[in-house]
């Protein structure tokens, strides 16, 4: 990475509508590529003329393409969400820590995602599937508000059909025709028979969801350093200069977003942070 503050031009080459407010865009470099992203890392994405926000990588192409899944919540995320093929976006990165799924090799892998939290975890599942024999059990628990609000629905269905992956989709509010699980992600999580010393868990979603899920795992005797979460704070520079993303002793853009629950727990329970 040479000039970390200088956005590199990427062109949107594909766009998939995921839900009523989320879309996945695929981008290719225009003349220069950024270094390869790792699962869990994020990019600072600049919608020209609107602004720049941190967005996790949701797919890492071998051909240098980047995939990002964006929920429209405000001006910048809306511009990125709406970007059609041909649109040029300024991208900086890769920034931050990684889930490092390869570090969980030999263990059971438990992935718990809520809402758009599935986006940063998708590369973990894809890399686990690409090296499936490296892991024992691989479990994916994904929660959404309603059945229409799952990201990557076709892919989730394909994962569910595999017999080397345990997938449980659960919704807070069922809709007509939904015959899957109804309940918060903590419920299927609590039903897992875990081998606490041989399991690594990755949690991503709203902070309370990660806290509640981590508590279930701690109750099942999992050591907190085997539980990894992804933190979200608003960011400006992305490279540990401006202090915008400070969370207690951490600069989330550098020390996170992925941290162990040992690190996160004391920070996630302090209301003023």
């Amino acid at each position, binding site marked *: 990475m040479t000039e970390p503050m200088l956005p590199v031009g990427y062109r949107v080459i594909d766009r998939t509508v995921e839900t009523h407010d989320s879309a996945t865009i695929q981008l290719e470099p225009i003349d220069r590529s950024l270094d390869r992203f790792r699962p869990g890392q994020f990019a600072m994405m600049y919608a020209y003329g609107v602004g720049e926000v941190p967005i996790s990588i949701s797919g890492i192409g071998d051909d240098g393409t980047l995939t990002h899944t964006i929920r429209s919540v405000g001006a910048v995320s809306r511009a990125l969400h709406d970007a059609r093929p041909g649109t040029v976006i300024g991208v900086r990165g890769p920034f931050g820590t990684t889930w490092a799924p390869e570090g969980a090799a030999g263990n059971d892998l438990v992935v718990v995602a809520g*809402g758009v939290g599935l986006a940063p975890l998708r590369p973990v599942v894809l890399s686990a599937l690409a090296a499936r024999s490296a892991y024992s059990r691989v479990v994916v628990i994904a929660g959404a*508000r309603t059945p229409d609000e799952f990201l990557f629905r076709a892919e989730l269905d394909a994962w569910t059909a595999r017999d080397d992956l345990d997938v449980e989709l*659960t919704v*807070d509010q069922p809709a007509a025709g939904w015959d899957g699980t*109804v*309940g918060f992600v903590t*419920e299927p999580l609590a039903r897992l028979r875990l081998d606490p010393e041989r399991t690594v868990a990755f949690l991503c979603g709203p902070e*309370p969801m990660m806290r509640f899920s981590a508590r279930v795992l701690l109750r099942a005797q999992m050591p907190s350093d085997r539980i990894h979460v992804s933190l979200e704070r608003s960011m400006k520079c992305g490279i540990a200069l401006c202090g915008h993303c400070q969370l207690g002793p951490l600069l989330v853009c550098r020390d996170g977003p992925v941290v162990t629950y040992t690190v996160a727990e004391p920070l996630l329970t302090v209301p003023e942070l």
Partner: protein
Amino acid sequence: MTSAGLFDGLTATEREALLRASHEEFYEDGDRLFEEGGHAGYCWLIRNGRVALDTTVPGRGHVVIQTLGAGDLLGWSWLIPPYRWHFGARAVGTVEATVFDAAQLKVLADQDPRLGYLLTQQLLAVVLDRLQSTRARLLDLYSHD
């Protein structure tokens, strides 16, 4: 809750007494285990499969409130008057369960208050877990409005 959870802290004799008050049952997809408002005479430890708890909403039929799965304990209305089910329950796919006879459980608990206390504690833990997850759903965490 796993069966290990249900039997936690019990002596071998107490476990046997509980098992004597139970039998194994299989349900086919769509079978109804009980109906809302019906007399609550049993509780279930789900061994395999899924059970949907539901209630009837005019115009919408049976609406699912929550699903339970393997290891979950189903039904605590048998413990508290008026001993009526608050919701209905339906098997989703085939379900294998251990069914406990509530009348026999109550006799056991009356005869042996220690056992009664442990069982009540286990049930309370289940109720608390359900309450917490219901609260989490009430937060509507994934919405952005």
